[in-house]
């Protein structure tokens, strides 16, 4: 059980890291946007297409049986990874965005005019716009849980916002812009006092903290495979079985039906009710391979190490007097957002890229949050367990050059 953390070996598992960008070694600090893929994931997808591919749940022939087994095995692995009660509670989607859209669309039926939906200031656009649309359709009211200057959710304000009319609370577990870790267990507890459903946007959290949906008692949890070292185009909507059973299907077609006549159609059981059409089979297999890979690592040590890199970078950044941190929550994940006096993030990003350093600049799909801090964007470095202190030094060196050029 006592696996050691071996950075050198881990880096060898990620072929993409070993390359030069504009003549410098790549330093990849855009992990919050998407993580890189270990060879195990790439191989799993390749093997699937080379040996096992066919459509799922449809054929009696061997390949179809194999593909179906692999697809369902992936579901089971994911269910275990988040400690779902049964694999019926794991619905495959394209990603977090689609998972939230499924919910905002299918929960509509339970919402009346004047009901209230709560989200927070720090949400990603994908956890804002679907709810706005739901409100337009149903006449419900969108209310915003405020944050403080450190970028922490204000729980006392949440308690004041909660009431009989509150039907849904949808908040992010970890902010992709600020790195704030929200106290979602407490939020869920509070929401349930008012019988409100809780949707958690786990896009960022899934790669940086263990998730136990039963312990959290959350109604719905959503995440994307590509932020968990898996492929793009695959994601998960977790929902408590009794709740998913209550909701209507999201899309209609093949796979999600039980019996179709021209007069009447009955729907399939969970989770297929929510999986119309041929699914992303290779994606699910890739995601399961990512989970297997993560399970082969000392995951808690990986998470610890990411924070060490974060703390080191934070310390190094202090050598610049022109930097203002955006997001200084007491509980943080390995994401650092900052701005530099009068220097536009975009210009810094271009110069860093010329030095091989990949950071994200801009609003990170959180425009209302930018408005709260009265800025147009930030420079964001987000870390993974495959990053090194030398890469952080490369970032700091690049920033020095950028600031010199631009001021």
């Amino acid at each position, binding site marked *: 059980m006592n696996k050691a953390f071996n950075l050198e070996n881990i880096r060898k598992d990620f072929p993409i890291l070993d390359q030069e960008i504009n003549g410098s070694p790549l330093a990849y600090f855009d992990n919050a946007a998407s993580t890189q893929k270990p060879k195990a994931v790439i191989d799993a997808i390749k093997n699937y297409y080379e040996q096992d591919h066919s459509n799922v749940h449809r054929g009696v022939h061997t390949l179809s049986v194999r593909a179906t087994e692999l697809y369902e095995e992936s579901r089971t692995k994911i269910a275990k990874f988040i400690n779902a009660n049964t694999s019926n509670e794991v619905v495959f989607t394209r990603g977090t965005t689609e998972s939230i859209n499924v919910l905002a669309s299918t929960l509509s039926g339970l919402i009346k005019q004047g009901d209230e939906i709560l989200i927070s200031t720090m949400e990603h656009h994908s956890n804002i716009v679907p709810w706005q649309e739901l409100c337009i359709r149903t006449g419900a009211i969108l209310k915003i849980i405020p944050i403080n200057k450190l970028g922490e959710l204000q729980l006392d304000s949440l308690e004041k916002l909660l009431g009989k009319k509150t039907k849904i609370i949808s908040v992010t577990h970890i902010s992709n812009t600020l790195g704030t870790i929200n106290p979602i267990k407490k939020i869920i507890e509070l929401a349930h006092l008012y019988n409100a459903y809780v949707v958690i946007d786990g896009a960022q959290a899934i790669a940086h903290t263990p998730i136990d949906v039963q312990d959290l008692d959350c109604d719905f949890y959503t995440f994307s495979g590509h932020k968990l070292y898996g492929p793009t185009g695959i994601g998960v909507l977790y929902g408590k079985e009794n709740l998913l059973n209550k909701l209507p299907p999201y899309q209609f077609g093949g796979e999600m039906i039980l019996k179709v006549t021209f007069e009447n159609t009955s729907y399939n059981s969970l989770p297929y009710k929510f999986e119309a059409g041929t699914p992303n089979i290779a994606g699910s297999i890739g995601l399961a391979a990512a989970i297997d890979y993560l399970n082969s690592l000392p995951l808690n040590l990986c998470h610890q190490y990411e924070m060490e890199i974060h703390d080191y970078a934070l310390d190094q950044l202090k050598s610049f007097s022109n930097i203002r941190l955006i997001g200084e929550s007491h509980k943080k994940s390995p994401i650092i957002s900052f701005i530099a006096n009068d220097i536009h*993030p*975009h*210009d810094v990003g*271009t110069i860093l890229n*010329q030095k091989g350093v990949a950071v994200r*600049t*801009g609003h990170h799909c959180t425009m209302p949050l930018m408005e709260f801090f009265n800025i*147009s*964007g930030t420079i964001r470095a987000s870390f993974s367990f495959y990053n090194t202190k030398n890469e952080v030094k490369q970032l700091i060196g690049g920033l020095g050059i950028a600031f010199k050029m*631009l001021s």
Partner: protein
Amino acid sequence: MDKKLQLLYQSTILEHGQDPRNFGKPDRYDEFAEGFNPLCGDKVNIYCKYNFNLELEITFESVSCVICTASASLMTTELGGISKGKAIELIDAVLDGLHCSTLNQKPLSKQLTMLDGVKEFPSRIQCAALPWATTRKAMIESETRLE
């Protein structure tokens, strides 16, 4: 220092980016448009007015990166004092140069060919193009309003 970077952030660009010409909102203007780059959140407001000779006076306000600000600043110095028709021609030549060919091949002033450095940075072409496209929008939309 990196050649491509030097070309992108050459001294004229940096100078215009940090100390833009014709910056601000006039009391009175004939045409206005707001430009927005959803990728990075940059904003540009363009104000056009025409004097009694129908020559353009153009100013802008922006929250934007060096490339976008410099491009806007250079644009105002180029478009100031010419007719609307000529201005649209020049705008189209620049936008075409940024998106398709190179600015060097166009009959443009030396100042404007400086924006060519941006072509080495595909992700930044939008930054340079935004003020020009916004001015075009201001001019065209005001015509449709009049009709």
